[in-house]
Each structure stands twice: as structure tokens, then as C-alpha cells.
């Protein structure tokens, strides 16, 4: 049964003063083998073709991505020479200068380094099926990725990761947490994920002025538990109570590891740093969400996408290095998702429009590095003129759900053949 979020929380709030999460100190924490999944949404529809370039199809790629009069500095197609240092094969052990199959975008040096570790899976040709009626709508596409459903109607289904972890108590903070704002991904059938605005050190109450701050704090505490006069007020109150109840725990984990030497070079670093701190602190959270935007590159793509991809790779390196230094990386898996790919051909604004198949990354000690799926053809497209998909996006999610201890069939409604990257 599809349940709108507020009805879940409204019911919880109406039952009295209860936190939404299991606050008992005896709550189960993640065992040492259980996978912790970090999902990163690349908001806007990342251009997969300019993220991983198929070297055997380079000629077609160059033609598609070069407008009639390419201006200096705004060319979308990468020069072949620039791709040599970042080339890779399905066998991750093949060094770049010997590789002939694919290449990361020139700005993705960090990602190339990650690939060398044998822990990065590059999944080619992932996307929404043609039976998704509006695959090229940002909203529809993101909802599909977050819920694991297609053709979603007026009522949003729960998120696939929230559902997978619905029966997991996690620690004092519950089983899921978003550092990237409210997300349907972490809304299960029973619970809604904690949201922390980075940096988590500031997760707390900032009080108004008064002559007696102790009175102020006490009054606020009492207001937070007074029965609200409306259902919408109860909803707000439920969230507020949860937030207040969780302050001590969040601060506890923030204090365990200040991570003052964690490199903070991007907004994604801020999000991943706090996720790392929660993991290192054994918070018991099993599902995390982060996001970065700016991938909807309809114009002047060369001025935006390379930097974003560089940021993505570097942030993953920063994250993994920190976790490894604390012996906390073993069970952590990171996945990327994005609305859709982009059109094969560039437009006259030196950008690309909404398209089809894309590339997905999954990284972690548990991941079998390499490439999965052939690169879509750059001469034979789907009926909409876009890159054809190899893997329905739900196929990727299914493998991850199993890795999390869930059942892909139960969560997604269908079984999918294992891809095998984890």
C-alpha cells in the first residue's frame, strides 16, 4: 500500500511524544559485516558519454560532439590525445597507456586512480526503460531512481533504500541519514530518514534572547511537546521532536572524530565528511544520501561538467582515504545515480539535451572492479534517438538491495538477473 509520508508521521505523532527512531541505547548497531551504502545523486542528468568515452567509437563520438563551428574553449568533444592518460580496459589491471577500450574524461584523474584499485565498477548503458513514459523529465527520472519504480503516479512510493532498511533499527539515529536534504530514497514504509545539514557540528538549537537562558531552553522543550492544534502542526512537531531528541547523539558522533584534517574542497566533501564521521563513530546507520547539482548541461557544458566530474572523483578519494585511515572502509559501498544521460549529439549552445543510457559507478572494498556491459552504440540509437540501455536502472538497484540484505523482488516488485559488480 502506498502511504503518503505525512500519514506515517502523523500517526506516529498522534500516538504521543515519541521519537521516530529507536532511541534506546540497546538499539542494534550495524554488525561488522553489514554493508553500508552511500548513494550520491548527480542532480540534473550527468552526460555519461562525456564521462566515460568509448575509445573504439571515438570517431563517431567526435563527430556527434563537435558542432559545425566549434569555438575555442567550449568544445564538448575531448581530443583523443587528452584521453590517453585516463584510458582503461575492463581488466582494471591494464595500465592507462596500454588501454584501448574506454577513457575517463580528462578531468577525472582521481577516478582513474580509484579504478586502478580494482574497487570501482563502471556500469555502462544504465538507464530508464522506454516503457517509462516520461523518461526525460527530471522529476520523473529522479523519482524513478529514488523509488525503484517507473510510471509513478500522483502518490509517491516509498524509497527503495528506505524500504530495504525499514526493519533495521540502526543505532540511536536510526538506519538512514541524508546529508543532502529530504530525499524520497530514505523514506520507507515505516520511517523517514534523519536529515542533517552539514556540518553536523551545528546540529542543534540556536536560542532566542531572554533574561534567563535556562528558562528559554525549558520553554522551548515544552513547546516542542505540546500537542499541536492541527495535523500539519503535528507533522512539524514530530519532526522537531525527532530533531531535538537526536541532537545529543549527533553531537556525540561529531565529537568522536572532528575530522579536522579532512579535505573540504567541495560541497560533496562536506556531505561525505559527515557521513564518514558517522561511519567511523559506529552510528549504526546503514543507508546514506548525498547529492550535488549542476549536471543539467544544456549549454556550455565544457564550463561545468569537467569540474563537477573532477570534484566527484576527488571527493570519493577523500572519503575512501579517510575511512581507510580509520579502518572503517571495509563495508562501505558508494553508488552514483543520475536522472538520465544526454543526447548523443551536441546542441548549438555547446551543451547537450536530455537523453538515454548513462554510466553508473559503484565503489568499495566489496565491489568487483572493472566494467559491466558493452558501451552503447553511437550509430544505432533507440526510437527516441538516444543511447540504448543495457541495464534497466532497477537491475543495478537490485544488486545493491541484495548486498544490503534485502530482496530485490520484494522491494522493486520484480526480479532482475544479477549483474555481479558486488
Amino acid at each position, binding site marked *: 500500500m502506498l502511504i503518503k509520508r*505525512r500519514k506515517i508521521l502523523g500517526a506516529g505523532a498522534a500516538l504521543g511524544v515519541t521519537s521516530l527512531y529507536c532511541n534506546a541505547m540497546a538499539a542494534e548497531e550495524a554488525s561488522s559485516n553489514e554493508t553500508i551504502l552511500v548513494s550520491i545523486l548527480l*542532480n540534473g542528468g550527468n552526460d555519461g558519454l562525456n564521462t566515460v568515452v568509448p575509445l573504439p567509437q571515438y570517431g563517431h563520438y567526435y563527430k556527434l560532439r563537435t558542432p559545425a563551428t566549434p569555438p575555442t574553449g567550449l568544445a564538448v568533444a575531448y581530443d583523443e590525445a587528452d584521453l590517453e592518460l585516463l584510458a582503461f580496459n575492463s581488466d582494471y589491471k591494464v595500465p592507462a597507456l596500454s588501454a584501448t577500450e574506454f577513457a575517463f574524461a580528462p578531468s577525472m584523474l582521481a577516478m582513474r586512480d580509484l579504478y586502478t584499485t580494482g574497487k570501482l565498477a563502471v556500469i555502462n548503458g544504465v538507464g530508464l526503460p522506454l516503457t517509462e*513514459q*516520461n523518461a*526525460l*523529465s527530471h*522529476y520523473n527520472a529522479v523519482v524513478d531512481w529514488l523509488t525503484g519504480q517507473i*510510471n509513478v503516479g*500522483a502518490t*509517491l512510493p516509498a524509497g527503495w533504500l528506505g524500504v530495504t532498511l525499514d526493519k533495521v533499527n540502526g543505532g540511536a539515529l536510526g538506519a538512514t541519514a*541524508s546529508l543532502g*536534504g*529530504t530525499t524520497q530514497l530514505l523514506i520507507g514504509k515505516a520511517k523517514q530518514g*534523519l*536529515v*542533517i*545539514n552539514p*556540518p553536523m557540528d*551545528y*546540529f*542543534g538549537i*540556536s*536560542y*532566542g*534572547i*531572554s*533574561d534567563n537562558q535556562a528558562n*528559554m531552553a525549558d*520553554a*522551548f522543550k515544552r*513547546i*516542542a511537546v*505540546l*500537542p*499541536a*492544534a*492541527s*495535523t*500539519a*502542526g*503535528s*507533522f*512539524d512537531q514530530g*519532526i522537531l521532536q*525527532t*530533531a531535538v531528541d537526536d*541532537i545529543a547523539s549527533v553531537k556525540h558522533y561529531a565529537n568522536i572524530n572532528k575530522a579536522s584534517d579532512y579535505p573540504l574542497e567541495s560541497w560533496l566533501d562536506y556531505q561525505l565528511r559527515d557521513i564518514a564521521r558517522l561511519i567511523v563513530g559506529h552510528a549504526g546507520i546503514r543507508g546514506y544520501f548525498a547529492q550535488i*547539482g549542476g549536471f543539467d548541461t*544544456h*549549454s556550455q557544458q565544457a564550463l561545468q561538467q569537467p569540474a563537477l566530474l573532477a570534484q566527484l572523483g576527488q571527493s570519493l578519494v577523500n572519503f575512501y582515504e579517510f575511512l581507510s585511515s580509520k579502518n572503517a572502509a571495509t563495508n562501505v559501498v558508494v553508488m552514483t545515480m543520475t536522472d538520465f544521460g544526454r543526447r548523443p*549529439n*551536441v*546542441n*548549438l*549552445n555547446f*551543451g547537450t*539535451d*536530455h537523453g538515454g543510457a548513462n554510466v553508473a559507478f559503484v565503489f568499495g572494498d566489496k565491489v568487483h572492479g572493472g566494467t559491466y556491459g558493452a558501451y552503447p552504440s553511437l550509430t544505432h540509437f533507440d526510437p*527516441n*534517438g538516444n543511447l540504448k540501455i543495457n541495464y534497466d536502472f532497477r537491475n543495478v538497484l537490485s544488486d545493491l538491495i541484495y548486498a544490503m540484505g534485502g530482496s530485490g523482488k520484494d522491494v522493486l516488485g520484480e526480479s532482475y538477473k544479477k549483474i555481479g559488480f558486488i
Partner: protein
Amino acid sequence: MRQTVRAILAGALLGTSILTSVAVAAPPAISPIAAPTASPTRAQVQYFLRRFSFSAAPEDVTAVQGSGIAAWLAAQEDWQNINDSGTELETLPTALVNGSYPDFQIFERAVVQHMILTNRQLQAKLELHWLDHFAVSLASVGDPAIMYHYDQTIRANALGNFSTLLQAVGNEAAMLIWLSNNYNSGSAPNENFARESMQLYSTGIYDLNIDGSYKKGTGGLPLVNYSQKDVAQVARAMTGYGVVVDPNNNNPQTRFSVQYFPGNHYNGSIAYFGRTQPVPTDGTAINFVLGELATRSATAPFEAKELLQRFVTEDPPASYISDIATVWEKTAKDPNQIAEVITAIVNNPLFFKYYNSMPKQPAELVIGALRQMPGMMQATANVTPGSSLLYELNNIGQELFYPATVFSFYRPGDVESTVNTGALLARTGVLANITNAQPSGAYTDTWIDIPTLLTRVTNAEGGTDGVQVGDYLLDALVDGGSPKLQSLIKGFLGKSPNANQISGAIWLLLNAPDYAVN
């Protein structure tokens, strides 16, 4: 507290400190209007004004109680005859000298200040709605003069005819830049604007019955309004436009223009929605396409439902959508169509059923507080950007003109997505910064004027002891409040509250769940 790039940049670029504070006049009371046709209750008026204005101080609520909701609506719909002087918006665009970074803040603050102070409240509320509906980011447009022009167009048409509004917005430089239609050329069409003009701005994705339900095809799947082929063809139809900016021209009014380049228009037959279209090649193609989209059968229920979702309930029943969509269709050619639709929404027997049923948008929460308390704003020239109201709106998740996505800050029907644990704790900080601020403080942008508040309390309650102040605040912010909340606030205030205690009580009430709802 989240450090935004803008905040860091602001601190780096501007090191001004406030030398003097310039008190901007508190919002004047709404004048009594013509004889009421109904006698609404106080709670009904407070609810109505929360929805269709940015809330009102108790005195103004009393005035509307006396004159009636219908009279208020009628006066507001005749907005041209409401005095709108007294805000910094009047000094724009000359204040936008050359599009440099400080001008971004000047523009934003002027608009927010206007929303707080204007007497044209219905127009201002619809301005916010259309800015959400036609969300465009200043970060992408990059020129506050272009955004100012865009905002002026939205405001001028906010209560007018929808087709006129849609066409006007479609021809704005800001929209052309935001959705890449400024380089949409016949030789390589860009589909961005074409897609969103249908998906977001007019018909929506799915074909709808008049009551907002999906029309379904074989297999029970909803029918769609357009295919990918339609998107590609509509993109061809709207080719040939460009935004021309003279970087050496410092006059914000003449620095840019939207021009049509016939040579860049698609030179071939264009067919969408199943037929060849006689798309004009004289520069009116955008009007041609958008004019048709405005009147397609799915547009009325799509737009009606969105208005209801933003102004009444996140889940409007089919009968309500049907009623409003019917009015929408009937008034399709009326110059004040949107105003008539708003009246129909309010007059519908279901309207008052949804009292306090939705969370406030974050901007409503802050702007409403400043209207009701009363809030004061520094003149922009004296503001230290790091502490500005815009920074607070950013922290609370809704800095105007920087929408998070093409759906603005939240998708219609999902305002509750703005309510999460991180957001509510950030809210405490935002409200603390506003209520703690002192006039003429070195880092003050906006503050609550306690002396003026006490004058109002005296006028309304006969004095300023703790009970009287408490009664006034509770009436203003939470429609009186529950007995337990009343007892808590009055207990906190004590017998003779000073300014600190009053500020503290305001902070408590602004954080109360009962304040956070519409």
C-alpha cells in the same frame, strides 16, 4: 551553519559596516474598505490572510474582519489603485549599476522588502507563486537587471490573464537564458525550453480530465500530452531568439534586449500534436506556441491543481479541481483571469476546510513574521551581507531567485519536503538571528521593532503587562493558541516583560509547530 559559496564570496568582496541605521516604516495598516458582504470569524480571516497575503498584524486582521474577505479581495484585485510607494523597489533599476555582484543582493533584498511592506499583498503572494512556477535562477542568468525585468513582468501579470503571462515570461531574457532558448537555432535545436514549457509551465506531462484525474489509455497507463517528437518539433518552432547584452553599457534598463534572428529560425515544416503548424517567422513564434499551450485542454486542470496545491491543500479533491478548472476555462480570455480564479478558490465551500492544513513555505514563515511583529529592515546600503536577510532565507532553504531545481524549492503538493530535522534546527537559528537582532547593530539587517510592537499592544490590549503582551503575540502568530500554549508563553513573559523577554517569547512562538502551518 551551512556555508554557501555566496556567503563566502559576499564576505570577501564587501567589507562595509553599518554606520547608521535607517528605519524603514513599518507596514501601514490596510485601510478599511467597502461594506462587507459577510462577517467572517477572526480565525477565518487569519487563515485567509496567511494564504493570500504574507499574513497580517492583528490590527489588519480586525480591519478585514470588519470589511469582509470579499471586499479585501476586490480591492486587492484592483491593485493598480493601491499605493505601492515606500520600498526600495522604487529605486531599481537605477540602483543596479552594472550587474556586479553587490547588485545581486540589492535586487533580491528590494524584492523581499517589497513582499514584507507592500499593501498589494495578493499580488505579492501571486508573484511568489509565479516565481516558483516559472522558476529561474539568478545564478544562471547572472545579471540582476535581467532578473529585475523578469520579476517586473511576473508581478505586472500575476493577477492577469494566464496566456498573456505565459507568453510574456517566454519572451523574457531571463527565461531564454535559463532554459537555453537564447541559442536555440534551426541548425541544432535546443530542447530545454520546449520541454519545460509543456511539462512545467502549461499542460504538464499527463493529459488530465477536468477534475485533475489522469486520462488513461489501453493498459490503464496515463496518457501523455506530448511525445519526445513533439518536444523536438516545438523546439524547432521556437528557434531564432537571442539575448543581446552590451557589456559596456552600464544602464540596466538598456543594457540588454531580446532579439529575433530570422536566419536562425528553423527553415522547414514543423509538426507537433499531430499536425503541421503554421509557425510564424516574424519573431512571434514563442507567442504562437505558448498561446496554444495555454489553452490546451490539460492546462486548466494542471494549473488549477497547482494553484490549489500551493494555496489550499497539497491533495485537493477532484471536485475542487474541477470547480476551479472550469472557472479557469471560462475566464480564459479575461484580462484578470487569475484574479477571478483566486476568487473562485476562496468562495468555494471547501476553502475553509483546509484551515492550518499545510506547512508554510520557509519564505512565508520569515516574511510573515516580519509583517506581523513588525519587522524593520536596514537600508540595503547599510547592510553587511554576511548577516543579511537573504543569508537567513538561504539558511532556511528558500532564498528567492536561487531555486533548488526547476521545480523551485519544492514540487507543488510536496511542501512538507521542506520540513526535515536539519531544516527545523536551522530554522531555530534563522529565527534567533531575526529576533535577537538589535537596531543599529553592526551586523543587523532586519530586526523586530519592540517599541512599535508595544504601541500596538497598548492599542489592542490596553497595556503591556505579560498577559497583554502574551495575548497580542498569541493572537498574531498562532490565532490565539491552545490554553497550554497561552499558559506557557505568559508564564515565560512574566508580569512585566522587558524587551529581551518579549523577543524571547516571539522566538518561542515562531518556533512553535502551530506557527509553522498555514
